[in-house]
């Protein structure tokens, strides 16, 4: 491998990503441990069902579900639990204090409805397994991918910053050098995203085992999840390939790229000439900004399940064209980087 230096850079970036994911998982563990104190509906059912004084009757219903009736005279509780697969509904009646209250709480895939009246508490707990589209999983890895892309972006500028005498006196062409560096970084960005997905799944299974489902736009969503950070990486690399420092490029890109769309929208309806000029510039830049394509007029996550998204520049309204544009943008930025790399002098 003639790109050992980039390999080491990628390793360092992945180490940082691992720390970030580790911190997130640690927070999830802490939250899980905290939630154990309050008990879960599952443990609640077990406590009622396996009480030594409980009388349990089980019956199979025609739709395949199981009904469990628990009567516990000692505790004056009565519960009817209907289970089907991993979902269940529990209707629990038990003594309560003198207070009177009622309410419903929904938390993810759990719903708890309770009513207390005349010293009797009536609680209905329902649980539906979390159904999670595969495409979402990948799209949620976008932030991790963008972080990795920002850490690794501009590998050619990093060489320009005082190492060209080493980089260019290896028996390898400049094109191959540049493309192999970009290839290694791309692989590292993808690995970081996969690690992010694993981390997210770890966080989820601590609370519930999600049911991952394949929905029609999953393929496009997965493509978008990988193309988004890659396009961002390509943009940073393309912009900085002739420069000697990449940090400033990354910083300024993060300052402008997420906001350029907002500027374009905020200045869209002004009649003032200077504002219209700003709008024209912002709108033009938004076409070249991968973040603008990942942004949406509405909440990005909200539009994902139906497989559509509106791009930052308002032209593309479905995932397919956005994926296509990001792909073309990535190629253009990489080509620009390689052309500059050929012309740079030590």
């Amino acid at each position: 491998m003639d790109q050992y230096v980039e390999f080491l850079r990628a390793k360092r970036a992945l180490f940082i990503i691992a720390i970030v994911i580790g911190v997130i998982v640690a927070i999830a563990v802490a939250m899980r441990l905290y939630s154990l104190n309050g008990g879960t509906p599952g443990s609640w059912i077990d406590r009622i069902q396996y009480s030594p004084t409980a009388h349990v009757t089980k019956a199979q219903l025609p739709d395949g579900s199981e009904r469990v009736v628990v009567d516990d005279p000692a505790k004056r509780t009565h519960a009817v639990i209907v289970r089907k697969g991993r979902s269940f509904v529990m209707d629990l009646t038990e003594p309560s204090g003198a207070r009177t209250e009622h309410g419903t709480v929904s938390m993810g895939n759990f719903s708890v409805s309770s009513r207390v009246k005349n010293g009797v508490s009536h609680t209905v707990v329902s649980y539906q397994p979390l159904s999670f589209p595969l495409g979402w999983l990948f799209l949620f890895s976008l932030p991790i991918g963008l972080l990795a892309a920002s850490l690794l972006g501009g590998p050619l500028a990093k060489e320009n910053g005082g190492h060209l005498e080493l980089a260019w006196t290896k028996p390898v062409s400049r094109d191959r050098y540049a493309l192999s560096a970009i290839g290694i970084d791309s692989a590292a960005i993808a690995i970081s995203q996969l690690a992010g997905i694993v981390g997210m799944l770890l966080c989820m299974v601590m609370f519930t085992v999600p049911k991952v489902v394949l929905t029609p736009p999953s393929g496009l969503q997965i493509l978008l999840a990988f193309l988004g950070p890659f396009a961002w990486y390509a943009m940073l690399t393309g912009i900085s390939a002739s420069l000697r420092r990449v940090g400033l490029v990354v910083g300024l890109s993060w300052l402008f790229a997420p906001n350029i769309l907002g500027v374009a929208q905020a200045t869209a309806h002004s009649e003032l000439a200077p504002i219209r000029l700003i709008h024209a510039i912002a709108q033009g830049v938004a076409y070249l900004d991968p973040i603008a394509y990942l942004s949406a007029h509405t909440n990005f996550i909200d539009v994902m399940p139906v497989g559509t998204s509106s791009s930052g520049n308002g032209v593309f309204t479905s995932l397919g064209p956005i994926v296509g544009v990001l792909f073309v943008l990535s190629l253009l930025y990489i080509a620009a980087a390689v052309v500059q790399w050929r012309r740079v002098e030590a």
Partner: protein
Amino acid sequence: MSTISMAHLTKTYGSLRAVDDVSIDVPSGSVFGLLGPNGAGKTTTFKCLLGLARPTSGRVSFDGAPLMAETFERIAYVPERSVLYEWMTAGEHLEMQRRSFSRFKPLRAKELMDLFSLDSRKRVRAMSKGMRTALAVVLAFSIEPEIMVLDEPTSGLDPINQRSVLRLIIQAAARGTTTVLSSHQIGQVERAADHIAVLRDGRVTLSGAVDDLKAGHKIVEGIFESDRFSLNGFASDARVVRVEKTGRILRLTVRSDGDEIARALSGMGALSVRVVDLNLEDIFLNAVDAGSPVDVVEGS
């Protein structure tokens, strides 16, 4: 046959001609010293030679062929300044070299690391200037190249390590390695190099085999009865590099025919005449000091 050939190499940066019509042939297996004061264009010449900078005009060839990516399998380069990766260890630099060059010799690398007392676990950012230079030298010599381009390879090194580098250069030359060497340590160049070129303001002002230059360059010194003697046309003599007149003493630095010029001084009435050999440093200084083709200096 010349391993390295530079023909009419010119490199300009705006209005500055950093390298101006430089033509140098480096014979195969020789050690070629490229000398010159700071800013003379040595490093730019090296960069043009290795394709790190694009020549404005002129041509570079290695064994008659233009420089290609594959040529670098045979070339080692020690740049003037440290270009090592600050965040990497010495060992990682060696690993980089191992993966890049099929000629890399791990045992040789280890010997060289021991020679310069370098710790492979140490990061470059924790190294002194001398250690960085030493590591660059280790990287270059560990691939046992056919061609070496060494730009100030002893910069920052202590005298012991300077001597080690010089010995490595001479040993490599003995094995047939062609070396182009730049150094401000003229004594080292004199010991190692068999050919030199002197650059000033981007132009070659002197070049040739070291032995020939030393054989030709002399100081012819004549002492006259009084300070009223004529220069007798020496100022315009093509063989004379420098004319110094100090009272009754006339000192001529000549590039050839020292004995003949000594006889001419005797013929002019000099009471005594002597011919003094020059070392490379004197030759270099004369080459770079000369403000005009013949420099006449008068003193009291």
